[in-house]
């Protein structure tokens, strides 16, 4: 052993708190743009509604604005981009500073992923607040009966699980690869090109089978907002898009979340040089 008096490592709490603060700083511009976009979007809708009510008879002007699981789709799309901000200029070949800190690499990376997710959840909550505010304000202008209370509980939860899924999916590529954009874009384009080719060559069944990844009963859309197709009709050429399904969502969402969570963990613990 050594006679040198050794220094301690930082506490997990200190690391987690600092990661939350640092990631918040990294995402500051994106967050400001997001809030500005929400304000602008809300102002446009309210202004347009006021104008509509003033220029049309009330019975001809209905916004029909309400909350439902599909309203979470923009959050999912935004969440796909957030990991690029969390790991700004820190692709694996430039991540040595992060790795050189006195914290185990895997947990340190997970802490940063978690910090980004926490900010994403705050953004989701802010988004929900805007949506709820609009759903409450607009009927007072049009005289409609507010229907946002019709949404089922699981549809409110979707506002948090959908962006979580999007965030984890992109995080896998951003943590694991120097070329995350290529992976994300390549997979997306490759997926649709593959389906297009299968259709073009008359392999409808194969194409439908591949499409289950996104549109199947337990596919990505089901995991995201409960949208999917009947499992029985997946291989049929006459599939019908069903309405939102809580039962599909209840199975697909945990499956996709656990799968992507495992992939993120593997990417985080992989020793890159």
């Amino acid at each position, binding site marked *: 052993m*050594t006679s*040198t008096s050794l*220094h301690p490592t*930082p506490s997990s709490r200190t690391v987690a708190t600092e990661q939350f603060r640092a990631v918040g*700083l990294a995402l500051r511009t994106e967050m400001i743009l997001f809030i500005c976009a929400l304000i602008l979007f809300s102002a446009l809708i309210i202004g347009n509604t006021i104008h509509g009510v003033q220029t049309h008879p009330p019975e001809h002007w209905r916004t029909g604005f309400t909350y439902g699981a599909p309203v979470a789709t923009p959050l999912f799309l935004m969440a796909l981009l957030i990991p690029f901000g969390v790991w700004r200029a820190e692709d694996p070949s430039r991540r040595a*500073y992060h790795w050189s800190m006195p914290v185990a690499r895997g947990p340190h990376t997970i802490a940063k992923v978690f910090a980004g997710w926490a900010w994403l959840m705050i953004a989701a909550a802010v988004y929900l607040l805007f949506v709820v505010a609009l759903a409450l304000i607009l009927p007072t202008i049009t005289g409609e009966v507010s229907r946002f209370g019709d949404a089922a509980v699981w549809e409110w939860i979707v506002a948090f699980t959908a962006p979580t899924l999007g965030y984890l999916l992109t995080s896998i590529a951003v943590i694991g690869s120097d070329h995350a954009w290529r992976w994300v874009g390549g997979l997306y384009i490759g997926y649709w090109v593959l389906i297009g080719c299968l259709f073009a060559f008359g392999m409808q069944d194969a194409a439908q089978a591949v499409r289950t990844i996104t549109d199947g009963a337990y596919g990505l859309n089901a995991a995201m907002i409960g949208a999917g197709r009947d499992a029985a009709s997946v291989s049929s050429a006459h599939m019908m898009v069903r309405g939102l399904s809580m039962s599909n969502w209840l199975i697909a969402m945990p499956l996709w979340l656990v799968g992507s969570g495992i992939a993120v963990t593997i990417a985080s613990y992989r020793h890159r*040089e």
Partner: protein
Amino acid sequence: MTSCLPTRLRDGELAVDTRGITKRFGDQVALNDVTLQVPTGAVYLLVGPNGAGKSTTLKVLLDLVRAEKGTAEVFGLDTRERAPEVRANIGYVPERPDWGYGWMRVGRLLEHHALYYPTWDPNYAARLAQKFELRLDRKMGVLSKGQARRVHLTMALAHRPPLLLLDEPTDGLDPFMRDETLGVIADHLAESPTTVVLSTHHVEEVEGLADHIGVLRNGELRAQMSRDDLNANLRRYRVEVPDGWSGVAALNGTVLRRVAAPREVQWTVWGPEAEIVQKLSGSGGTVREVVPLSLIDATLALLNPND
């Protein structure tokens, strides 16, 4: 010729102790069976040409790079098994200037770094920032190489680590700031008990600091020794030789360099001075001068590829 240059230090407590570390990057051997021994409290100068494996050796100690063979310990802690504890005790100045977060301001980066090191001394950090003339409001990404290097030095020194790994610490600095930096490092060593592993091409700058030297070439540790050993055993011999001199059969040491001129030959030899002088005189030559080498000349001799 078989080298008899020393590659092991004598017994004593070691701050850094690697045993036979080997690392390849693809087909390229970056480190080959390197056994680095840095005594506690030493200022160990690691020299070698570009690509010799100096930076890789430092990265193995931080567990940024993992050796395929061999083990590495820092203060008795395995660098792989107990990497966070090892890193908590190291202040590292990397060779690359894009260290830290380019989007962060200098002041915020120092604050961020401080939170990871419970022993961070804020007063000392402020003093260093003043000495290095850091502009805390500037973003890291817009700093010049020299400015970034000064920030890295502040980050490395301010938590007063027991071990400093400095990879080209004065690279990119102007002569004034280079002098200032070496002064800061010397002051730091006087104030805080620290072991230093220093990799630099500017060997002449650390002549007064380094007390041990390790020579890496092509991923192999050719020699490591204390300055005392170096000063005692490495000499340049200037010998006047007669016409038709047939040469000396064998010197009792390792010839690192031989320069021949008309009627005069210079040898740079590692070995016992008295025996070498006796051999040279016995061969018919007249030993005119025996001089110890400066650190830079010694380094060049030890790196001599003809050895």
